[in-house]
């Protein structure tokens, strides 16, 4: 609750701040300050489960350890994102404080989407998440790529909204209780009525769209590629993770007891996502676009949680969200500093900027899922959950084979950084402040810490 309200308020603050802030660098401090505030408040709620604001939401939101933990992770990742890439937000355009305001609104949407309890709040949350993102995608107005990305994102997003609404409508129609509450769909163990089935497929599709699962992923590469890199970093991590949280909460609470009837669909989608994501990423020359595809591939792995739908899966998803967000934010923060976004642009980075190179290596190893990094633990949880579920073992084998493919493209960057030479400077040094390096090192350290003790996060769920 705290998070929702405070993010909304702080968004407004930032919005008005736009009028008063003279210097371009001011908004960042405010944003960081506000975010820290919100984070504290949220942690307080996580610990006590007693929000500061006692708003009667008529049970339309539901707060528990799970989604509060996620919100905490989302907020902390955003904080890290601000600290690492905040200065780059200022380069996007001149409405800096508006950008921050929009980011706060997105966070508000994230919090709602993570805590929704009725289809309405789900819908609202997702919309509140999406609409600011359309703007941020297009925020580099002179850049036609950015425009194109915004248009595609918007049209396809609206399309998926339509689908989602259709789904909601059918669910409502099929629900004899005539309620939108996800834990009141009134499904028995038996075969679900056709209306529900149709609605479920529609909802599944729209959620798959939000988490960019194949074959509804097409917007992802173009949007991630076109939009300003800072915002790519944000929406590829926090927003996507929120989508997954919404996804799993919806399907666990609403359709959990008829899982067997839709598990096949998820299996198909997962396999397709893994295959397309990994396969297409192999070919990419631009690191930015490659990371876009890799985010699809990672989504494929996260889908295993929805496939498995057990406690292990939920722990794993939280862990995955954290690990994936940390690593991706880190690698994007480094990518932004590069002069050239192609893989060759990384040539010889190890010589010129060893710290960047080494931390980048940690991030990439984590994304690949090498032991001792958080990435391994999260993938490990996913596989564990999927196998525990006991259905469709082929999917797990398939997943690990795809993970092997993923090593192929992640290590291309490592090779470029360490084993190739480059004469001209690959990054402009004045951007690289000592604080930036230290923050990178801290991020890498976090990743490794999580890699050794995933319990640091999972304990939050069970304490």
């Amino acid at each position: 609750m705290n998070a929702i309200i405070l993010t909304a308020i702080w968004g407004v603050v930032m919005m008005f701040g736009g009028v008063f802030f003279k210097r371009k660098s001011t908004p960042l401090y405010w944003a960081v300050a506000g975010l820290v505030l919100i984070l504290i408040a949220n942690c307080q709620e996580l610990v006590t489960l007693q929000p500061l604001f006692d708003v009667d939401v008529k049970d339309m939101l539901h707060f528990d350890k799970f989604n509060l933990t996620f919100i905490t992770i989302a907020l902390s990742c955003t904080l890290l994102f601000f600290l690492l890439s905040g200065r780059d937000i200022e380069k996007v355009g001149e409405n800096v404080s508006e950008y921050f305001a929009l980011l706060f609104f997105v966070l508000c949407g994230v919090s709602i989407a993570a805590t929704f309890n009725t289809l309405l709040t789900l819908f609202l949350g997702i919309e509140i998440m999406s609409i600011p993102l359309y703007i941020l995608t297009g925020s580099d107005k002179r850049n036609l790529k950015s425009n194109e990305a915004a248009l595609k994102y918007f049209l396809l997003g609206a399309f998926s909204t339509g689908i989602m609404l259709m789904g909601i409508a059918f669910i409502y129609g099929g629900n004899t209780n005539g309620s939108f509450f996800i834990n009141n769909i009134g499904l028995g163990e038996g075969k679900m009525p056709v209306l529900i089935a149709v609605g479920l497929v529609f909802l599944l599709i729209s959620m798959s769209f939000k988490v960019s699962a194949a074959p509804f992923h097409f917007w992802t590469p173009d949007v991630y590629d076109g939009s300003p890199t800072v915002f790519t970093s944000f929406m590829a991590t926090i927003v996507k993770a929120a989508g997954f949280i919404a996804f799993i909460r919806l399907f666990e609470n609403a359709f959990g007891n008829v899982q067997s009837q839709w598990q096949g669909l998820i299996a198909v989608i997962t396999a397709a996502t893994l295959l397309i994501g990994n396969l297409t990423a192999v070919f990419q020359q631009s690191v930015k676009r490659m990371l876009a595809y890799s985010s699809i591939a990672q989504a494929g792995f996260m889908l295993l949680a929805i496939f498995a739908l057990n406690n292990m899966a939920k722990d794993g998803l939280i862990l995955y969200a954290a690990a994936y967000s940390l690593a991706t934010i880190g690698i994007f923060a480094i990518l932004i500093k590069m002069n050239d976004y192609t893989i060759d642009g990384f040539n010889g980075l190890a010589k010129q900027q060893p710290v960047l190179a080494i931390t980048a290596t940690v991030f990439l190893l984590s994304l690949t899922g090498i032991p001792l990094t958080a990435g391994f633990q999260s993938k490990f949880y996913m596989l564990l959950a999927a196998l525990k579920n006991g259905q469709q073992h082929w999917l797990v084998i398939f997943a690990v084979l795809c993970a092997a493919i993923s090593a192929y493209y992640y290590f291309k960057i490592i090779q470029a950084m360490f084993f190739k030479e480059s004469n001209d400077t690959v990054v402009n040094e004045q951007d690289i402040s000592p604080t930036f390096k230290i923050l990178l090192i801290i991020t890498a350290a976090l990743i490794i810490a999580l890699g050794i003790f995933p319990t640091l996060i999972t304990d939050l769920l069970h304490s």
Partner: protein
Amino acid sequence: MGVTEILFWFLSVLAIGGALMVVASKNPVHSILYLIITFFAISGHYILLNAQFLAIVNIIVYAGAIMVLFLFVVMLMNLNAESEPPQKSKYLLYAGIVAGCSLLLLIVAALRKADMGKQLVQMKDGDVGLINNLGKVLFTDYVFPFEISSVLFLSAMIGAVVISKKESIKTTGQV
């Protein structure tokens, strides 16, 4: 069949016809007008279902505000049949039509299996759609969504501003 049926069929035909024309007509202005017709038809359905509030809101918000907005934009860009980008690849066109129709058939076929036949819809009477009930529900149970939707509007507003505001300085380089 009674008046209700007649009205139902009439409005349905109107809505679908309008919708088809929206898709079909070359000139954007025409499609907008057809879409307005469709919305009116839908509002008619709402009235038929005795959802008066929604009927009104639909006309005001959709047919009124939104569509007018569209119209303004189209006028502003003065788009017309000539400036309309033609669908170059015919295959995509046919593929689109086929896909849409098969989607329709699929869902219809699926729903025919479900025996919703005996499920009736309450026409004309029933006071759930009346403004006072909705108002009660909206401002008691649905106060939170109502409030939070303000965030939506705020962000939309900021967005519109940010997007359409003139940049004084040219942004450079890759961001």
